[in-house]
């Protein structure tokens, strides 16, 4: 009971909660201004999310890649790096998985793991390039990883269109059955929602994220370099090697996100006109979650849930998708601006504190 009290009294729970509420209110105002009924809209959002097993399953599917990209961004951030190239690493992960999934023929217990590992390593190496450039030549990782995003997009398109293409179509041949990571019984259970093992791997990755950074010596080094590279050098750590390592690990997480989109959801890779944006959404997720393991999970659920549920708003309440983006945007805005919300809450919190004092 005591701990429960502590959890709910903590401003760490209160502040994001109020932030979401404020975001929804601002979103409601925007909808009212546009002549839409916000109550109906929010009802349809929730209805969309929870009305059927299929929708619940699909919402989980939408959340899963955001967990991966959120961890990727948060991990890099914890080690002092801003990995804005998660998008590209995600695409490289997809491509790695598709390559192995389409071209090889192996028993499932080798094929699937090999495809997963290949995709993850593709993502990791892609990120490590930016890390290597930073460590050896001082190139800012933000610039290099943005450029690598575009290279990844067009390189993947080239690989798919040249080596893996299904004749006459703008997509690859299907990934072999033996490499797929869908969960058939769960798909049945959830009314054909696309369920896959990636969701569980994502949860494991959150644990890995925590253990690696806060429980191992490796993580101690990574965090020390992130907080203070000068002190890390003084303490005898190899700062440059740590930067490359950190980017590689961050890229692994991003790559895994891409892997499961192919092996778990689609089963093939398309030639893309533009990237999907999971990587960029991952930045928002990491920000929402304060770069903490549990925070990233909650951030991904919020972000993915809003994204998926918002289609319900369009259908159920006729709200155009632009206005839906305003609603999502204002929620993120308030969650991200802790300071603003705390300022807003200050009079209430003060009153509570003084009341408590009086009681004493």
């Amino acid at each position, binding site marked *: 009971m005591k701990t429960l009290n502590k959890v709910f009294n903590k401003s760490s729970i209160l502040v994001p909660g109020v932030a979401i509420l404020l975001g929804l209110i601002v979103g409601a105002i925007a909808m009212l201004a546009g002549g839409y009924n916000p109550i109906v809209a929010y009802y349809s959002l929730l209805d969309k999310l929870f009305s059927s097993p299929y929708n619940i399953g699909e919402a989980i599917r939408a959340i899963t890649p955001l967990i991966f990209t959120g961890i990727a961004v948060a991990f890099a951030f914890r080690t002092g790096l801003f990995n804005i190239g998660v998008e590209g690493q995600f695409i490289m992960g997809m491509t790695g998985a598709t390559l192995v999934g389409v071209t090889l023929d192996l028993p499932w217990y080798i094929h699937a793991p090999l495809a997963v590992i290949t995709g993850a390593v593709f993502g990791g190496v892609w990120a490590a390039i930016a890390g290597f450039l930073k460590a050896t030549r001082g190139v800012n990782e933000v610039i290099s990883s943005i450029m690598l995003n575009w290279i990844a997009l067009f390189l993947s398109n080239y690989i798919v269109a040249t080596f893996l293409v299904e004749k006459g179509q703008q997509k690859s041949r299907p990934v072999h059955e033996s490499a797929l990571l869908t969960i058939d019984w769960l798909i049945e259970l959830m009314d054909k929602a696309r369920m896959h093992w990636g969701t569980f791997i994502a949860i494991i990755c959150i644990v890995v994220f925590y253990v690696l950074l806060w*429980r*191992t*010596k*490796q*993580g*101690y*080094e990574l*965090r*020390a370099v992130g*907080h*203070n590279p*000068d*002190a*890390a*050098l*003084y*303490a*005898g*750590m*190899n700062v440059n090697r740590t930067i490359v390592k950190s980017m590689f690990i961050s890229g692994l997480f991003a790559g895994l996100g891409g892997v499961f989109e192919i092996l778990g959801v689609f089963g093939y890779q398309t030639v893309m006109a533009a990237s999907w944006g999971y990587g960029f959404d991952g930045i928002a997720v990491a920000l929402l979650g304060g770069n903490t393991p549990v925070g990233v999970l909650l951030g991904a659920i919020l972000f993915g849930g809003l994204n998926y549920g918002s289609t319900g708003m369009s259908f159920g309440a006729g709200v155009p998708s632009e206005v839906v983006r305003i609603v999502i945007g204002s929620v993120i805005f308030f969650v991200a601006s802790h300071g603003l919300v705390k300022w807003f809450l200050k009079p209430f919190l003060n009153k509570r504190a003084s009341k408590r004092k009086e009681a004493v």
Partner: protein
Amino acid sequence: MDRSLAAVQLKGITKRFPGLVANDSINFELKKGEIHALLGENGAGKSTLMNILFGLYQPDEGEIWVNGEKTVIEGAAKAIELGIGMVHQHFKLVQPFTVAENIVLGNEPVKGLKIDYKLANEKVRSISERYGLKVDPQIRIKDITVGMQQRVEILKTLYRGAEIVIFDEPTAVLTVQEIEELIEIIRNLAAEGKSIIIITHKLKEVMALADTVTVIRRGKVVKTVTTDETSEQQLAELMVGRDVSFQVEKTKREPGEVVLSVDALQMKGEQGKNALNGVTFNVRAGEIVGIAGVDGNGQSELIYGITGMRSVSGGSVKLNGQDLTNRTPREVSVAGVGHIPEDRHKHGLVLDFTLSENMILGSYFEPEFGRSGLIDYKAMDRLAVKLVDEFDVRTSGIHTNARALSGGNQQKAIIARELHKEPDLLIAVQPTRGLDIGAIEYVHKRLVQARNEGKAILLVSFELDELYALSDRIAVMYEGRLMGEVDAENRDDQQLGLMMAGNKSAAAVPRERG
């Protein structure tokens, strides 16, 4: 001149920051033409008070009177308008500009649309001559010494018509000779009718320079006295609030074997200049060797070179005969070198790590903190508790972030960590920088204790008093080379000062004293 008139009166100034009262109803009076020292330890509230006077902070309570009139100083612009000027500790000068250009910046004399440089030069020259500052208006800032740059800052305030000049720790970056010259300049200013406030924690300078001293402790004025009626000892006690001993007890001791030997060490610096030009010296067991010199003459580079934090381009470093030239910092540390770094925030601590995590900063890889790749947090905490206890680190707990500790306690934590390694050689760079007298006493005691236990200690400091108090031998560094070595007991301030300023003949003259 009527000296009884007050240039500045601060009445009941109170300034609160979250969780702290920086100034607690302070009364302060600066008379016209007076040199008034504001003395206090770090964090006592002197800078806050002066920032209020200069308009950078607004007081929560109290009144400011300037030249007999009550005023509100909303910003630095208003302060300047009222004739208040401030010479900051860190100069605010544009390096590639000339002296005159820097001085007129923001208030340039114009002829049509163009800046009238000729007039600017003349104006600067005339002010410079009037106060005996001897600054050439046409020389570029990057080509002049730190002492000269400070004079440019002084000129800047005078050019803007300052009648009241505040100096923030003005001697921190100067050599002995430069300090003497600065004292002369400040006296000139006062003689010309300017009123001067000097923020400092150095007792000697207060006694040498000021007419009146106001001592501040923990945000409150402890006492205002004239320097005729007080002594260094009394001021120190007022400042700290208890008895202090300046003398470090140090018995004579025969040094043992050579522990560190540095031979012809060279390091490349910026723009083709060598940061180190063949530095040779050694440190033996049970002695403290001090490195004196003005900041920026290669002391930091020397330490980086020895500890492997930067690679050297020539020469060698040996510890107990083992070659450590260009090894990694970890190899150097494991070989038996402890290092109290110059900048405890930059190098010494990861401020966002807990105190406990910081205690294993250089030793986290050792098996005692976990064999499997996981960190043994229990072992880490055990060590932290032990060291916190042994070295009296005042903290609310070992899981407090290092950032939350006071400077003195941060330094104690670093010293605890480095001494716990049981190093053969301990390098201490500016170990008491920014610490208050109480903490300085403690650090000095610990260093001498380590020396008495037979450790070799290399001490780099910009404070001559500290070098005198601790060192057995003092080597002077100038522009990346050692100018010579003096025996700490039979030293000569003048000679040491000249060596620090790069005067070779001073070093060459064989000393015949003592």
